[in-house]
């Protein structure tokens, strides 16, 4: 098959934008409540686990980059079709599309839950979902470059919250809670890393945006920088949360980050979470756009349907899900499953794929 077709110049992006794409794709619902999930597994050493997971993530990003550089202008879907052949390739692509779609759903469901728990108890799920769907539909229709623009803007409109929020919780922090350090055992470390993976998902999108990058040799470097930025933010939020909450209190607090925002008081607004939660929508919009864009793109590449039709079908399906799927227990189970599948898709599969690509290439020579 035709490997390495030319990319249209007006569709490409600068390499440094990969940083924002990867970073904003990683920041999502996970940041709001990662502290509790991790604390349950590894207690005060949670931040160490995040750093170690970060190191592994950087390695995986590097492997992904290696795989992609064998192909230059192709996404994961094209690589699959090349390696596995037409039928098996299509099947694997379908699985990948399903994975991307379920990540999309899990982010929406997670956000809907936050809005209902914190701001509008009685707002129906489908209504909040409909807002997200309209935004996603509009965004994905505009094409890839506008999506990257949204990522950049979302980064700028969300990062300031971190600085506003530092001072207040620190006043109540007990640094004793961080000690004794390095107490974790290897099984705890393993379990903790698995739990962190959901919050770090997003870097696998490099598989789909790579062909659009102008200077390909720099793409991986910027992707790794994006991962490091996410790790820094996660570590800061986790360290503050461990100091701010006492052990069992943190285990009971579902969204520790938002609970910490709750005490920030500005002269014109008494409760900062009423700003933070709407801004959170800006944080998740890049995720929704990128995942939906990649999923609909996958359908187009593998099955030849128009990308916009695939998009409409997916959006309609999600609306159905939002209407019928709104028990917290089920939602949590679903998000856990997505995290689990994400772990295999993003951490295990890239290694297998890389080996497969190497074998294929050496056979060709």
């Amino acid at each position: 098959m035709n490997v390495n077709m030319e990319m249209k110049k007006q569709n490409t992006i600068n390499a440094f934008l990969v940083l924002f794409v990867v970073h904003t794709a990683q920041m999502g619902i996970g940041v709001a409540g990662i502290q509790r999930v991790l604390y349950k597994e590894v207690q005060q050493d949670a931040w160490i686990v995040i750093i170690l997971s970060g190191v592994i993530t950087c390695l995986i990003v590097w492997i992904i980059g290696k795989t992609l550089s064998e192909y230059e202008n192709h996404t994961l879907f094209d690589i699959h079709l090349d390696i596995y052949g037409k039928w098996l390739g299509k099947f694997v692509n379908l699985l990948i599309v399903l994975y991307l779609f379920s990540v999309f759903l899990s982010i929406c469901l997670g956000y809907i839950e936050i809005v209902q728990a914190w701001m509008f108890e009685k707002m129906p799920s489908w209504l909040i979902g409909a807002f997200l769907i309209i935004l996603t539909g509009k965004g994905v229709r505009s094409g890839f470059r506008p999506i990257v623009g949204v990522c950049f803007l979302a980064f700028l409109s969300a990062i300031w919250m971190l600085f506003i929020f530092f001072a207040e919780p620190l006043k109540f922090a007990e640094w004793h809670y961080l000690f004794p350090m390095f107490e974790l055992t290897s099984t705890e470390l393993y379990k903790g890393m698995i739990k962190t993976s959901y919050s770090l998902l997003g870097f696998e999108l490099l598989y789909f945006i790579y062909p659009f990058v102008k200077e390909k040799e720099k793409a991986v470097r910027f992707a790794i920088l994006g991962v490091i930025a996410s790790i820094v933010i996660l570590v800061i939020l986790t360290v503050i949360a461990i100091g701010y909450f006492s052990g069992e209190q943190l285990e009971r607090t579902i969204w520790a980050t938002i609970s910490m925002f709750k005490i920030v008081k500005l002269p014109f607004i008494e409760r900062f979470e009423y700003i933070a939660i709407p801004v959170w929508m800006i944080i998740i919009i890049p995720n929704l756009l990128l995942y939906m864009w990649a999923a609909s793109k996958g359908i187009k590449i593998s099955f030849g349907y128009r990308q916009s039709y695939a998009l409409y079908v997916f959006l309609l399906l999600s609306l159905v899900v939002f209407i019928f799927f709104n028990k917290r227990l089920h939602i949590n189970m679903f998000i856990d499953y997505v995290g689990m599948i994400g772990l295999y898709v993003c951490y295990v599969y890239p290694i297998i794929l890389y080996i497969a690509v190497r074998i294929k290439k050496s056979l060709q020579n």
Partner: protein
Amino acid sequence: MKKTIISVIFLMMTLVLTACLEQYNLEKLGLATVIGYDLDKEEVRATAVLNQFQPEEKNAFQVVSSPGNTSKTSRQSSNLETSNKIVGGQLRVVVLGESLAEEGVLSITDTLSRDASIGTMLYLCVSKGNAKEILETKPPVSDMGTYLYNLLKQNIEGELLVSATLHEFLQAYYDPGKDPILPLVTMEDKSVKADGLVVFNNDKVVGFLKGDEGFYIKLIRERFKAGSTEISIPSESVKKFIKNKPKKENIFVVVDDIKSNSKITLVEASTPKYKITIHIDSVIKEVSEEVILEDPESLKTLEELIEKEMEKKVNNIMKKLQEMNSDPLGFGMVYDSSIRNKKLTHEEWKDMFPHAEFDVEINVDIVKTGIVE
């Protein structure tokens, strides 16, 4: 053109769609600024002071009170007593009645922390007697909610009371090595005032600390400045520095802590044994006799005497806390953070704390003596 029309339609929809959710009109709300909880037979009685906004009336407020099995049902039945809908978003103070506080307050604090609309920076306090009585009195200025809030706030900021927000209460409660501590509010001749502290064992009140003991509690909890305290020194020991003949047996010195530094270290884990080191930079605010303060030797003697008196006080408080088996200073937290590979439980710490030993070392530096010598 088509796009413009569509976007205009969308923009107009945002105007129409605003009423989709529950509406909160300020004139139709009763903003609860303070809620008091009492034990009324087997039930919890909630009393709330509601602020209402009526254009004709200045300071319109109403006190409602009704019992219920849980704090939420009592709030709902309170709603039947008022023309306005009760909301908790402006809740500033929660008063826990003495009877309830002795039975345990977790059900109340749990409800408060579960409700997203209620801030975790609201103040908690315990009332001597019923909370209802306090909330029903008319304060000298504005309504009881605002009055209590300002009373607690200015005293916490002015370093006279230990900070007691809902968050800090829960932080201490859920920590096995720490117990909550709250201010006590009393009513005397129709006037409400803060008067000392109450300490908890888990979520039950087990004892009281007097006002001046609060100074030492703040002193040991490193995060806060401790404010000022009065210390008595036997006149005999500073006789040679006093200009006139002392009138009383003791002279009193008011010491203001401008910068203090406290450190709790675990010396020995099995007993457990602690070393409490406190360094205070202080200002002499007032001396009841005319003591020569410019003399380095006299200052040194004074410092030593103050140190000794403070150490005695701290030891007394520690003994008192151990008798009540309440650890608001978080010695268990220090224990837990110093011992590797062991997670402290509530029960373990409750067994250990009464036997703990404390070695108190206080170092006072008088850095200023005011603008006169």
